[in-house]
């Protein structure tokens, strides 16, 4: 399988990365080189093989469903590019 410029633009949109026309051309070549390399996986017979979910067999850890942390609003917004009254500020999303 290989990607064309329309696919590169669609994937960039899904990934929320703005791309210029030059970027698209370069990425098309590079992505196709990588996809060409991974293509060889198709030749492996995986019939009856379970996909890997965890490299180390272990039981999911659980804890009591209680509050163990919190009251850290100052810390949470401390690194935000824009915040007000403990809210993250973003451009208007609803009219």
């Amino acid at each position: 399988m290989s990607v064309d410029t329309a696919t590169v633009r669609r994937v960039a949109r899904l990934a929320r990365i703005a791309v210029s026309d030059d970027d698209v051309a370069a990425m098309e070549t590079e992505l196709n080189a990588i996809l060409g390399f991974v293509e060889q996986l198709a030749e492996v017979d995986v019939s009856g093989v379970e996909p890997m979910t965890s490299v180390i067999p272990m039981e999911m850890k659980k804890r009591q469903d209680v509050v163990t942390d919190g009251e850290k609003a100052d810390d949470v917004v401390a690194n935000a590019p824009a915040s007000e009254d403990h809210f993250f500020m973003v451009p208007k999303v609803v009219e």
Partner: protein
Amino acid sequence: MSDLTALTIAEAREALVTKQTSAAELTDAYLAAIEAANPQINAYVKVTADKARAMAKASDGRIAAGEAGPLEGIPLGIKDLFATEGVHTQAASHILDGFEPRYESTVTANLFADGAVMLGKLNMDEFAMGSSNETSYYGAVKNPWRRKGSNLDLVPGGSSGGSAASVAARLCAGATATDTGGSIRQPAALTGTVGIKPTYGRCSRWGIVAFASSLDQAGPIARDVRDAAILLKSMASVDPKDTTSVDRDVPDYEAAVGRSVKGLKIGIPKEYRMDGMPAEIEAVWQKGIAFLKDAGAEIVDVSLPHTKYALPAYYIVAPAEASSNLARYDGVRYGLRVPGRDIADMYEKTRAAGFGHEVKRRIMIGTYVLSAGYYDAYYLQAQKVRTLIKRDFETVYADGIDALLTPATPSAAFGIGDQDMAADPVKMYLNDIFTVTVNMAGLPGIAVPAGLDDGGLPLGLQLIGRPFDEETLFSLGSVIEQAAGRFSPDKWW
């Protein structure tokens, strides 16, 4: 004492306890070395001199009070991927500009609780994506090693290039690092240092900037095998904050250094003998086989038939997980924000400006292989192949093999700005051909220097162990180290 930065961690520990030096003197010696060397080597992206001096002073107090921890007063460099409270933590990326977390990663908290001193944050490939430390927003790191009679700058490997270079150039006593496809072992091999990636789940991932969560593991880079064992003992823990942290006591790794390897069965996987492999890599591998044989180990030829599929499977699984993990960098909660006409435009512009080229490439690949219609063909297929790769290892271990010996890298250090690798991303990815299988199977692997090539550059060997059997790797690694000797670069900086 004369040159304090020449001491290994074990030696410095002894010198501190016997009061031949103080933690303050030791830290000052490293800070002076960093000030002199960093403009050339570029291993540190942030030096925390004041914090280091304060930590060293506190260590001297604890030593005087007889309360010294296992790493008391030992000055370390910390990879920029580890969250350090109130200190520069940017994964060497532009998108995390100005990020200073309000919390400490479990691994660094463990080190500091044991008395370690932080000298600063170390350079790395952006978001740990790279094998040459050239993708860093802060510029390439230079390898302290140069080819005999040459002034050409070489890469230190990656992604933990700052960690490896700072250890090799004696700009810290030891360093933290992380390894997703070879990012501890490959730079260790290219700089003549020792690096171990422990079993998945041994070190907590809490507070480490995530790249590919099912593959990421922290580990140390150190000057010798003993120092690596000392550091891993402090870094490893059982952590309720990481659900993949494994509930097993941390053994005394240092006790395994120098332990007899007589009768151990060492597998030599035939699939690691690649077409076109340089003669010097084959030669150092044979040397390693001879060292272990001389020490009484039994050498057995084995087969890991799915080896060649590990790298292509990795380049589906890792970017897929990365595209998901890196979705959080959107200009809202931390780091860089580039304004846009609406929120989606702000996201897109922020991510376009904040991520470097390699990171974008991997996010794009990951997004593509997870997108509708391609998931089964790529991601599911890769995860099935991963099961087969792990099964290969389980089969040889079930046959009684204790560990495997392979080359660590397909070549010695290469030049900064290598044209072939810049032109073809897959060429750069091939650097991890011998290391990536270990991450795919979650196993422990150590890289130990085993000799120099014709140009005088270090070459490393890799030992791969059974799950949670890091101790055997330290025993075998110290045999190679004893036989091969230790290597340090001639100072040009």
